[in-house]
């Protein structure tokens, strides 16, 4: 591959992951964790970092092994690689940030079954060179992260009047009746629907013009 094609492939991967083919509001993948961990911004940040780490490295690893891995067992190998990185994250959290590990509960372990990870390994890592696969994983994870952070910010501010645990002026005051439902599970569905609706409307308007 020559320089220019590589360059444009890189750009395509970045734009696709963040916007045109965003895993959350376009492909509607990884919804389980989107709904579960977004009621506090801090938990969301850690979850996103864990996913960025897992997704970019496992896509790259799958890509490194792609010429060696027999087709018929490739999904087993992919799952194994993903599980490997997830366990590393889980153990790291348990050892160095036990409070966060207990906050996130089972959700770190569940990254293994996050469809985005498997999806990117299958759709991209399997048939592209490692550097591009890494980039693809990274930007898909970032695409997931920015949507999650938007959802988490609204949920925490509206529901608890705080952001990252710090009080937000108006929303923590007596004039704001906290929307408790926002930090409860239903709030995640409302916010996800609203965010998907807005982003998709923007997308389709851009396509038409």
């Amino acid at each position, binding site marked *: 591959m020559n320089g220019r094609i590589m360059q444009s492939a890189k750009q395509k991967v970045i734009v696709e992951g963040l916007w045109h083919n965003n895993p959350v509001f376009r492909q509607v993948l990884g919804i389980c964790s989107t709904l579960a961990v977004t*009621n*506090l911004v801090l*938990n969301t940040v850690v979850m996103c970092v864990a996913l960025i780490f897992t997704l970019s490295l496992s896509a790259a690893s799958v890509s490194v*092994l792609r010429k*060696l*891995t*027999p087709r*018929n*067992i490739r999904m*087993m*190998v992919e799952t*194994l*690689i993903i599980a*490997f990185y997830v*366990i*590393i994250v889980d*153990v*790291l959290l*348990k*050892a*160095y940030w*036990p409070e966060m590990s*207990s*906050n996130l*509960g089972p959700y770190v372990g569940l990254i293994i079954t996050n469809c985005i990870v498997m999806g990117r390994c299958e759709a991209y890592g399997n048939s592209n060179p490692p550097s591009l696969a890494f980039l693809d994983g990274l930007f898909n994870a970032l695409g997931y992260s920015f949507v999650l952070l938007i959802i988490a910010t609204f949920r*925490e501010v509206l*529901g*608890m009047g705080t952001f990252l645990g710090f009080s937000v002026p108006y929303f923590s005051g007596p004039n704001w009746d906290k929307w*408790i439902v926002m*930090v*409860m599970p239903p709030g995640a569905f409302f916010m996800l629907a609203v965010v998907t609706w807005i982003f998709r409307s923007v997308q389709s308007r851009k396509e038409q013009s």
Partner: protein
Amino acid sequence: MIKEKKWFPVIYMFLVTALLSSIVIGFTQFTSNRVEANRKLAFEKAVLAVLPGLSDEKEKATGLQLHLRFAEKVNEPDDYSAGAYTLIGSGKIIAYALPISGRGFWAPIKGIIGIEADRKTITAIAFYQQNETPGLGAEITKPEFRDQFKGKVMRMGEKLLSFERPGTKLDKNSVHALTGATQTSTRLETIINDALKKWQQQLGDGLDRN
């Protein structure tokens, strides 16, 4: 070519698994001491938090300092304390730290409740393991909730300490439940009452025997 051989996928899977699992096992071994220490420290911190004069919310003590303080000041449970850790000063018990545990909304809640030498007045409460809903049930770990317990007195009767609806008037035997976390609140109320009742009973038995 080797890739076309029938046995290749088996060997390949075997090798990849062996490689990755040995890295994971090594890594887990490497951090296992730390993980275990964290678990122990969380417990010791909770015990220190409920015994008077042993910790300060604002102080930045390292894990090692806290562990040494625990080892130096806190006495392990014995027959006379009915399962509670004790703080002893000039030969007399100053306070008890009673471990409590039970089912929360999502997962077990484990904590420590501190009781003064009169065996009736609560000094403080702390939790070292819980998995309640962040922002709702998990607020039991926040000072706003925990500080309510300070100075409350166990009453005689069915409920030693009761949780009341937020906003209602409290007496010296009750605290406010958490808004939006009814399940966590009722379960925690049961956990606390069951543990205290059992403790008082065991203490009573101990006294009878002597």
